[in-house]
């Protein structure tokens, strides 16, 4: 038997939750998610959608439709073979993974035939959905640079500010990049995450569509964050974006990806592949907040290669989805490269956030710091699953891992599965984890200062995830606080 299977008690606890007395201040939180975020468009206006299911015909069709070069078409077919031959992972949530029906998913949907250059030219219906998400406001702020709005599988809106173009920064969607920068894409595509890596990376490699391509030339520092919004809208539609970010020597870039998907009744699959390449002396920060609706499977492979003196930072927030399995990874292959992974996971009713991080030290004097915060409530399950591997010869490597979990009620669950494999003596590896509930004394103190129990709890939760929030761009920190508040709501009054 697999020790990582869902504990039966965890699921039965969810079923009985309705009969409990509403003593918990965190009960019913997020009940109004549908009303606030559960909007969706009429699908009939979409101009192209593949049939359900996956075979070589679908892959061939996607590739031909996109008019791709032969090498990419072959790559897709080869990846499909790998996908079909690989077994499902036997860890994480094997039960939820077993529920995925790969034959009942649209692998390619295209929302609009046009690439528009101006926000006002966007299809009104799509625009309306984005308006609900606050994208135009964000874009209007001079803080933000390019916006690639991914609506369904293809990028429909894309604007690059003139100053970015002047610097030589390439920021396009992946399909355009394949057409316009084929040589660079060919060289780096799947070089960090080959399709053989895991079943879902293979799936993405076979049917990928959309995603971002970023190239920052030598020495260029992009001062303002690059942003992309991703959405899933068609029922049973997989979204398989493919992102490749290359920071050339001495450059700097901060890429921000945010997701808020409308809710649907049947399960949707999101399986992205994100590859980062940090050349010597460069710095990449990749910030994500995923808030997929609570029926989405979010099975994502994210990995960076960090060359000498470079720095890669994953800032990773997980609020939504039914099951997330995501372990941002950094391979430190050059001396003095540094990895920083800060993550927060919020697991509510019916959710399993199986998130974590992976750092491989393959060069001397490389360092990594991992900070993970997880909150479970209403029967949710938060798991930290991490790997730190130090290869022989990576002398002077330093690793610090800290995982803290907060459990808000007695129906929820928190797991920590850290793995440390150390093949080198001259290193310093530290791992620490704590699990606790919101302290009665903290609550009492705050209530004695006039806060209600709900306000006090929210304040403590916000304080708990502060190491994460402080890493976010200001608008995102605000949005995250709003989302956490939404998740924690329902107890007030």
């Amino acid at each position, binding site marked *: 038997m697999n020790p990582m299977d869902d504990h039966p008690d*965890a699921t039965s606890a969810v079923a009985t939750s309705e009969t409990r007395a509403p003593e918990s201040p965190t009960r019913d939180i997020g009940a109004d998610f549908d009303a606030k975020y559960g909007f969706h468009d009429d699908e009939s206006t979409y101009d192209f959608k593949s049939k359900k299911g996956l075979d070589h015909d679908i892959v061939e069709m996607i590739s031909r439709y996109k008019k791709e070069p032969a090498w990419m078409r072959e790559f897709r077919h080869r990846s499909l073979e790998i996908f079909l031959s690989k077994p499902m992972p036997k860890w994480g949530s094997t039960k939820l993974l077993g529920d995925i029906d790969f034959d009942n998913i649209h692998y390619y949907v295209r929302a609009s035939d046009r690439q528009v250059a101006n926000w006002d030219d966007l299809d009104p219906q799509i625009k309306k959905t984005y308006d609900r998400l606050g994208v135009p406001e964000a874009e209007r702020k001079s803080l933000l640079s390019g916006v690639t709005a991914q609506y369904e599988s293809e990028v429909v809106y894309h604007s690059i500010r003139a100053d970015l173009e002047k610097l030589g920064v390439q920021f396009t969607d992946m399909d355009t990049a394949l057409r316009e920068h084929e040589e660079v894409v060919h060289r780096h595509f799947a070089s960090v995450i080959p399709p053989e890596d895991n079943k879902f990376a293979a799936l993405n490699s076979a049917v990928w569509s959309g995603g971002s391509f970023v190239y920052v030339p030598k020495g260029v520092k992009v001062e303002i964050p690059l942003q992309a919004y991703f959405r899933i809208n068609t029922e049973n539609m997989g979204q398989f974006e493919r992102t490749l970010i290359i920071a050339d020597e001495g450059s700097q870039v901060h890429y921000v990806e945010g997701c808020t998907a409308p809710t649907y009744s049947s399960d949707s699959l999101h399986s992205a592949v994100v590859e980062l390449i940090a050349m010597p002396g460069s710095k990449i920060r990749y910030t994500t907040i995923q808030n997929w609706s609570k029926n989405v499977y979010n099975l994502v492979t994210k990995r960076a290669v960090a060359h000498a003196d470079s720095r890669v930072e994953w800032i990773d927030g997980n609020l939504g989805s039914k099951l997330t399995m995501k372990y941002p990874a950094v391979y430190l292959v050059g001396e003095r490269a540094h990895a920083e992974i800060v993550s927060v996971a919020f697991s509510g009713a019916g959710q399993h956030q199986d998130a974590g991080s992976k750092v491989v030290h393959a060069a001397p004097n490389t360092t990594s710091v991992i900070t993970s915060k997880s909150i479970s409530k209403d029967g949710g399950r938060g798991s930290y699953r991490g790997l730190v591997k130090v290869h022989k010869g990576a002398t002077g490597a330093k690793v610090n891992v800290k995982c803290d979990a907060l*459990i808000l009620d*007695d129906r*929820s669950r*928190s797991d920590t599965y*850290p793995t440390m494999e*150390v093949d080198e003596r001259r*290193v310093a*590896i530290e791992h620490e984890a704590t*699990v606790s509930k919101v302290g009665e004394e903290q609550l009492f103190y705050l209530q004695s200062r006039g806060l209600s129990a709900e306000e006090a709890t929210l304040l403590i939760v916000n304080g708990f995830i502060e190491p994460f929030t402080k890493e976010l761009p200001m608008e995102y920190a605000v949005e995250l606080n709003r989302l956490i508040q939404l998740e924690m709501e329902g107890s007030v009054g």
Partner: protein
Amino acid sequence: MTDTLVEAAHIASATHRADATDPDWVRKFRAAALERWNAEPLPDRVEHLWRYTGPERILPGAREFTSPDGRFGDLPSDFADAMFEKAAAYAVCRDGVLLRCAVDSMVADLGVVVEDLHSAAMTKRKLLEPHLGALRGACDGIGAKFDHLTAAAFTGGAFVHIPRGVTLERPIRISSRIGGSGVLAARSVFIVEPGAQATIVVDLASAEGSEDAATMFHETTEVFVGASARLRIVFVQTLGPKVIHAPAVRARVAHDGLLESVSVALGGGTVKALLASELAETGAKANVLGIVFGDGRRHFDHHTFQDHLAPSTTSNLDYRTVVGGRARSAYTGRLRIRPGALKSEARQRNHNLVLSDDARADTIPELEILADDVSCSHAAAVAPIDEEQVFFCESRGFSPDEARSAIVLGFLEPTVAQIPGDLLLARVRAALEKRLAAVVGAQGSAR
């Protein structure tokens, strides 16, 4: 494939050989276990428990099961002084079979029993039957495959029973020696009734003349700590460098009971050890200490599991590992707080000192927390000897090697100091110092 068939035949014949003198109920117990062994597939390496030591490494394969030798050889040098100033009872085992046991008559009068499992099966069925195999399913039935093996084919093992309310000031000592190149299987049952208090010290080594034998030793020990009872078990293992040792200890601690477990693993070539404790009732507590010292090409894999089933249960785990030479250690541990086990406290620590470039230490300390009002933490670290500490010692007149040895011994001392019995403690210290001198010396000259 043929190996598997040969293995099955060997286990079956070992089972039949062993049950020749068994009472009926034990014969049935073995037969059922044999069926389970044949039916149960090998565990999957995707489980952390088997990640670093594939189950095939401790499979009997084509090896034959050997009949126990029946001769202990020279009695341990501390046997005499143990009679009975320093021990309440002293038993000697060869190849798992308890050959002789001397019990202080005052202790025997209290009803304390220390005897071979086989003889207990003949005369104490009522006491033994409800306990033998009762903990197979503990902690998710972890490692059950090999529980079936010892249940089917055991040829020895100790039975210890401490009656209700009896407090033993002196420990029960069990000296165990193994030899030969075959497979040995043993099962032991320790029962500490409510309110009783005892210490059991098990000292396992290779028999004289068998120091280089590649013995495979599977043993299962089931431990029952009754309500408000206290049991301290100390395992000291100094086996030869080729021995394959697969010990499993499964314990159940009742209401307000306390289990203290100290395991010292210095020997063996391949060691795959399991220590699973169930904190089954309110107020149960387990303190689990362990040290592992590996040099040469030794391979250690220790798994611990503390399962908190009831409220206000406590566990403290501290495993310390030192690896030098080309030795390798893997520590995997799991802490679980079940739903409703509120007000529980659990601590898990695993620190690893890596002394040489070719040594390796892996660690996976896991937490599974299904209740909110609890306090749990774990910590793990892997590092070489702190050179600043070495520098400090040198500034006080230590040579570099002396400084390193002192730091390593200091790292292990809190656990070593828990070993009762002057002579056993002295033997452990001497073994540690000798082995350490070799590791540190080799490292020093390579520097």
